[in-house]
């Protein structure tokens, strides 16, 4: 009964400052919209400069294959220095340069006619993609040429690939579920850290402690309203993922609820822990941004592959709870209930939640003595 009273008091406090509600509901919407529409790793219309030192029908046939590709928006440069000038000014990302003896070399069966490709390597990942697309367009030209001459352009080995779970490689299908984990980290940890730190700062927590309320009731009374708020934000995010962004959801709903609840507990525990260390809102908000949002974004496998990080950093990612939840979400959304993926990761999250909640509970008692 006392607990219920505390929950009610806390809920009223949440309703009074609309920014709590905004953190729980506005932030997921804004973030999902930005990521869902704004972030794409699928390049299209790469600006490309085409230069032929001695333009003729052969070079025109090669250049036509770039016109036909959806990946490029090519333009012809009159000479190499002009094209290089465009590359320096970031007007184009790459130059395809055909030297003057190209056609002659092409007729000569003993030689391979060279095509020079210059890419802007500043964005290494993008440069590698551009290179692969150009290679593909060039391959099309070779095949068409061989076919016209009645030859086979087949390579000795062809690689047939089948991509499971996301055949079209829509980046949205993995970004949106991953983002849900980032958002939940934010809601849980940032909100709790701020609220609890405010109580420490104002001394209202000590005031509550001298009432007959037990410390456990006090903490539960704080956490329950934020837990409900967090689950609400979660439900909103999942609804947007499924209905707005059309990400398939193949897993079971109950497992999603259960694992989300455990993940939310790790975030709430972390927020509580931060507030106890910081004791003031300014420091708490800084620590929350630095230790929750950025690791959930960068060290969770959300965008950057954990397996490719150096060993010491991979070890560090084991304490980032978002790492486990993102794996669970990707599997639940795109592959279904794969128990060998879901349960070990759930256990890891339980351990982290127990650590943060348990340590916070002990530290509060100690700090009052």
């Amino acid at each position, binding site marked *: 009964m006392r607990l219920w009273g505390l929950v009610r008091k806390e809920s009223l406090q949440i309703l009074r400052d609309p920014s709590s509600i905004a953190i729980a509901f506005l932030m997921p919407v804004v973030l999902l919209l930005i990521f869902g529409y704004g972030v794409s790793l699928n390049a299209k219309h790469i600006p490309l400069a085409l230069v032929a030192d001695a333009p003729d029908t052969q070079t025109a046939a090669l250049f036509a294959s770039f016109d036909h590709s959806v990946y490029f928006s090519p333009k012809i440069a009159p000479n190499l220095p002009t094209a290089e000038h465009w590359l320096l000014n970031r007007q184009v990302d790459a130059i395809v340069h055909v030297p003057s003896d190209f056609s002659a070399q092409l007729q000569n069966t003993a030689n391979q006619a060279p095509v020079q490709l210059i890419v802007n390597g500043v964005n290494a990942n993008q440069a590698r993609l551009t290179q*692969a697309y150009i290679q593909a367009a060039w391959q099309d030209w070779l095949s068409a040429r061989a076919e016209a001459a009645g030859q086979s352009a087949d390579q000795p080995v062809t690689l047939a690939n089948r991509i499971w779970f996301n055949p079209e490689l829509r980046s949205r299908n993995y970004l949106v579920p991953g983002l849900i984990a980032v958002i939940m980290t934010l809601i849980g940890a940032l909100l709790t850290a701020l609220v609890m730190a405010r109580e420490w700062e104002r001394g209202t927590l000590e005031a509550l402690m001298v009432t007959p309320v037990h410390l456990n009731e006090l903490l539960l009374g704080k956490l329950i309203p934020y837990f409900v708020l967090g689950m609400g934000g979660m439900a909103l995010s999942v609804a947007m993922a499924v209905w707005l962004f059309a990400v398939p959801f193949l897993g079971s709903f109950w497992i999603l609820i259960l694992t989300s609840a455990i993940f939310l507990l790790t975030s709430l525990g972390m927020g509580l822990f931060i507030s106890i260390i910081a004791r003031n809102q300014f420091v708490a908000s800084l620590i929350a941004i630095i230790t929750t949002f950025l690791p959930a974004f960068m060290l969770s496998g959300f965008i950057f592959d954990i397996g490719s990080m150096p060993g010491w950093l991979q070890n560090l990612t084991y304490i980032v709870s978002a790492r486990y939840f993102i794996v669970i979400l990707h599997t639940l959304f795109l592959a279904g209930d794969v128990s060998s993926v879901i349960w070990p990761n759930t256990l890891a999250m339980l351990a982290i939640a127990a650590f943060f909640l348990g340590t916070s509970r002990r530290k509060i008692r100690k700090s009052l003595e």
Partner: protein
Amino acid sequence: MWQRIFALAIKEFQALLRDPKARFVIIGPPLIQLLIFSFAATFDLNHVPIAIYNQDGGQAAQSLVSRFSGSQHFEIVDNLTRESDIKRVIDHRDALMVLTIGPRFEQDLLSGKPATAQLIIDGRNSNTAAIALSYASGIVSDFNTDWQQTHHLRAPPSVIITRAWFNPNLESRWFIVPGVVAILMLVVVMVVTALSVAREREQGTFDQLLVTPLHPTEILIGKAIPGFVIGMIEGSVTIALAAQAFGVPFEGQLATLYVGMGVFLLSAIGVGLMISALATTLQQAVLGVFLFLVPAIILSGFATPIANMPGFVQDLTLINPMRYFMVIVRGIFLEGSSFNSLINQFWPLAVIGLTTLAFAGWLFRHRMN
């Protein structure tokens, strides 16, 4: 007037750095983060787990497999003997991909028919899948070239010779580290400026400041100075670390970079003070910081190119100061860009800075009374 502003700035520094915890969270984490994120944030994959299902015991198949085991990008984790195992290793995330070589592989290859190798990829993370696929295609294409040479088959009549400017080995770290420098500067400056006024308002000390002879504009400048100084110092340290510890080449002029940092900090401080003036509690200010920071980072071209975004989002990035600063930092680091070639990045930053500062000043005068 300047004496009063100077006194206020000194007071701001003292308020900011008095608390040892606050001192630590402003100085320590950015450096730790530069270290961690610079190693974490890479799109280059290493040791991608791959399983092999080789139904052809012949030499050709073996030599293709050994190209995968010899590559630093792949690590063979399993040799499958049954087709039904493929689903298991992919579902359980034991391997990211399975290479299947059919029983007629060598026979087809020797008889001149196109031989097929099949690659099954886990598409749950579509970006990793696409990069791993491009590595695999590269390995098969190298295999083909060698096969054609050793078996005296006709090589393709043309060849592409690639050169990458500014980043010859296409290292993504060179691209990411300068971006991380920009992000850390933004985060610190936003936190320092946006939370400074909100904190005073919540504690009621801002009213005391208003009854002093200080003009609102002077208060604005006094509040802006600590963010500027801290941003400059932090920027200098992280830039030195990026160039010295991470070996990112620094090709441009240091003076040009400092001009860029100066105008960028002005625009970041303008936004920070705007948020500060609009918020009435610290929690609202933190929410405001988040609602600005996350889109500013995501839509800056830090990890995914702006050119891949839909048209209206690309237009939206024009008001994002980070977008311009990313180009400046990377241009000066990797391309050795001159002041003149970056002029189109400098003036929008200056416009954003002046607009936001003027608006913040207006808010200070009108919302405070």
